[in-house]
């Protein structure tokens, strides 16, 4: 288990810590801006439903939201603006178990997941949605209830940036605990590598659904875990258990990929059956690209 020092007031004042928070926030902001600019349609559609006011049309706005009546009356283009749906909470449930810390070249899954979490939090904050955060491993490690103020966002970002221990987790018990901590209906975004038994995973998903949550699964895998893109003799160390396995990577690659794809498909199929979205991303794909692709796909659904 990876162990990090406990967070204290003193550490919070540490410039390095502050730097890491700013760094995470900066990256998340860049990602969000990139996502927003990259989409042809406003991302607000995903999180807002009630009309609020009008504003003048600017380049890039969705033409579907033009108020043609006003155009006919005033000969000017106005875009309808909608009130944010404040009763939809975003619950980010982030897996920080040791399997997420598997470190090789490039980003770790944990860092990728942290950035993804921060980006989503910032997107939600931008829509003035309440955002909550649950960090879990074998159990819930930290819980931040969903709130909509900016201080809370900073708090979440700080929580994400903080170093902490990463206990191993061999079952989704922490997910069940998280579900119990979120009785209020909302959107649950689960970010994990999902190294659980499928039945246990779906039981946890069902647990979230039981409370009326919409569930979105972000499965984050490293390229190594998905394609094993290395050759020769390798000593593979299980980040969870420390178990070592020596093999010739090129020999087992095909079988490994097949097995992994089968596993992912199994999860995907199970999610579809539960009307749960499942997005599998690898850490070699830039985060903004992954998010753009996701939101573009999601927009097609609406």
């Amino acid at each position, binding site marked *: 288990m990876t162990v990090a020092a406990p967070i204290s007031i003193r550490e919070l004042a540490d410039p390095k810590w502050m730097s890491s928070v700013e760094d995470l926030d900066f990256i998340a902001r860049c990602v969000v801006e990139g996502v927003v600019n990259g989409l042809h349609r406003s991302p607000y559609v995903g999180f807002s439903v009630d009309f609020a006011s009008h504003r003048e049309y600017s380049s890039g706005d969705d033409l579907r939201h033009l108020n043609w009546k006003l155009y006919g009356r005033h000969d000017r283009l106005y875009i309808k603006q909608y009130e944010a749906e404040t009763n939809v909470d975003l619950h980010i449930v982030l897996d920080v178990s040791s*399997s997420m810390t598997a470190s*090789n070249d490039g980003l770790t899954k944990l860092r990728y997941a942290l950035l993804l979490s921060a980006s989503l939090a910032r997107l939600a904050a931008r829509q003035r949605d309440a955002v909550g955060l649950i960090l879990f491993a074998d159990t819930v490690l930290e819980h931040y209830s969903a709130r909509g103020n900016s201080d809370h966002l900073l708090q979440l970002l700080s929580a994400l940036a903080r170093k902490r221990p990463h206990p191993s987790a061999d079952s989704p018990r922490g997910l069940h605990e998280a579900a119990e901590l979120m009785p209020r209906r909302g959107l649950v975004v689960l970010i994990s590598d999902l*190294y659980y038994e499928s039945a246990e995973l779906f039981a946890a998903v069902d647990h979230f659904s039981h409370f009326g949550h919409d569930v979105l699964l972000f499965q984050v895998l490293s390229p190594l*875990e998905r394609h094993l893109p290395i050759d020769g003799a*390798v000593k593979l160390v299980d*980040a*969870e258990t420390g178990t070592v*396995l020596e093999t010739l990577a090129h020999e087992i690659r095909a079988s490994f990929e097949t097995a992994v794809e089968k596993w992912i498909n199994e999860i995907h199929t199970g999610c579809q059956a539960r009307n749960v979205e499942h997005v599998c991303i690898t850490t070699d794909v830039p985060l903004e690209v992954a998010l753009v692709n996701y939101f573009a796909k999601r927009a097609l659904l609406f």
Partner: protein
Amino acid sequence: MLGLNLIHAGFLVAGLAAALPVLIHLLFRQRTRTVSIGSLRFLHEVVKEHRRRRRVRQWLLLSLRVLAALLLALLFCRPYLDRSHLIGLEQDVVMLLDRSASMQARDASGETALTRGIAAIREELSRLDDNAIVHLAAWDSAGITEMPVDQLRNTTATAAATDFGLGLGWARDILSTSDRSTRRIVLVTDMQRSGLPRAPLERLSENVELVVHDVGDPMPKNIAIESADALRTELRPDSQVTVRVVVRNHGPLPVKNVKATCAVESMSKERFTVEREFSLAGRGNTVLDFPLPLQSDGLYKGKVSLAVDDALSHDNARWIAFEARHPDRVLLVDGQEGSSIFSNETYFLETALRLRTEEIVGQLQSFEPERIAWEAGKGFPRLDGYRAIVLANVRRLSDSDGERLEEFLRGGGSLLIFAGDQVTAESLSTLHQRGLLPGSVAEEPVEGRRRVDRWDTKHAALACFSDPQQGDLRRLEFHRLLPLEQLEGDSVELLGCGNLIAAAERRVGSGRCVYIGTTVDRDWTELPRTPMYVPLMRQLVAHLSDQLSDRAAVIHRTVSKTGEAVGIARAKDEEGRWVVTNADPRESALARITEDELHKLVGTQQIPTSAEALSMAGVKLPEGSSRTDEIWTVLVWLLFAVLATETFLAGRIHA
């Protein structure tokens, strides 16, 4: 068992290259990278499945690489398949090594033909597989000695001659009982033509192969003593004992001033040496006489030798032994002296006994007859110097005469009595009363022509006449006969006419008495006019003087038994005789028979001795020679197959 042999066995060291793949694997094996992964969940499943397959593949790959290295090393060794062991299972081989005297001949390097022959046998043995049946024998005219292979080096040349008929006949008999398909006779000889028998050689079976190894060397020069015999071994004042030697030059070139020496020694160690010098034309012969000034009776032994350096040394000397003695004195008592010498009663007998051939070889039959006229009334002289006394038509004998004769007979002398007009039963009564006569003599002679119709064919004196070619005693005819009426004691009948006993013999003490019922001259018989007379009389007198059997002191023979050596030795019987053994003179001949001629004589084909035939027999050829049974092509294809499989497998493993 696959008989795989190597021409360049030294390249087997290159087989160490089989360790190269292992070495390369150890030296250049990939370093293991340590990689952290979220979960080994799927890897465990996949690796478990692949591990066994991978291990099999890797071992297979290593084996292929090692095999490729070994094949490459083996290829350099130039392997070939030795199928001789298969051939050996069907082979029955008789190896005949000529050990006759001529095999002692040395070539320019001083090596004997026998040494070359042993080497040839060893070479033949080395070509044979252990499964082949081998009968190894040394052979000459004296016999065949089968021997184990390890006794081969102990084989020595004998003094016997060559006899192809004997050796090939023995081999043929052995192979005729063999059930193997390949039957072969390996004949190692110097191809001496004298080894061919007078009768044609018996042909070998069609399925018998004959391999001839001619180890002889054409010999340009050989001077040989063909014979050495003692002539005139009787000691007479008018002549000397002579040893006659026949020397033959078997070579084409003449020889000059060759020294020949005859050296004999008496039993009392008295030595006599005579030397002669002679020259001989090519392929000529000469007779050398060596007169010896011998004076005393007794046995003499020694040898005749030539001082010459030629190819064959065994025939440069010849052993001789002989008995020299004065002739036997025979007293002829003439009972009816004639008016002239020719009309004497004993004229024909004396003449027959005095006959002396010019050169007599071998056993003596010499007599010194002394005649006395009985009617002169002087009686017998001293009888102790005589071997035999002949009474021819003696009218009367006094008691004292009978007493002296009995004493003479019992002392070992012999008496021969002939009938005649003056002989009656009464005139011989003195002898009859003393038990000296073989039987009682008839009162009156029997008139009328009668022929001998029976005789003792086993009698020492008459046995030679059992062969009609040497004289038929049935031609003996009498017109008057004074027979014996009845045989007495241990007397035996010698001649018979119908129911009449014409001649008989009786042993008296150590002597013998023979009675013949006819005259010794022509009065009662025409025997003196027939050719039978001289031999019959001499045989009878020789028998009575013990010249026919007991006194043959020397036996001459040629080597005829296995292991027999030349020289002079005492006979193994108790007679005290000497045996002179010499080499067979036929072995001195230089004429040689060709291999083709021998094959024609025995009806076989010449076995090819080409490199191919030798190769098929599994013979090791010199390095660099090409062989038809090399298997490098098979190895090359095998190597290609191994390398192709290795490449394919390696591609699969490392892909």
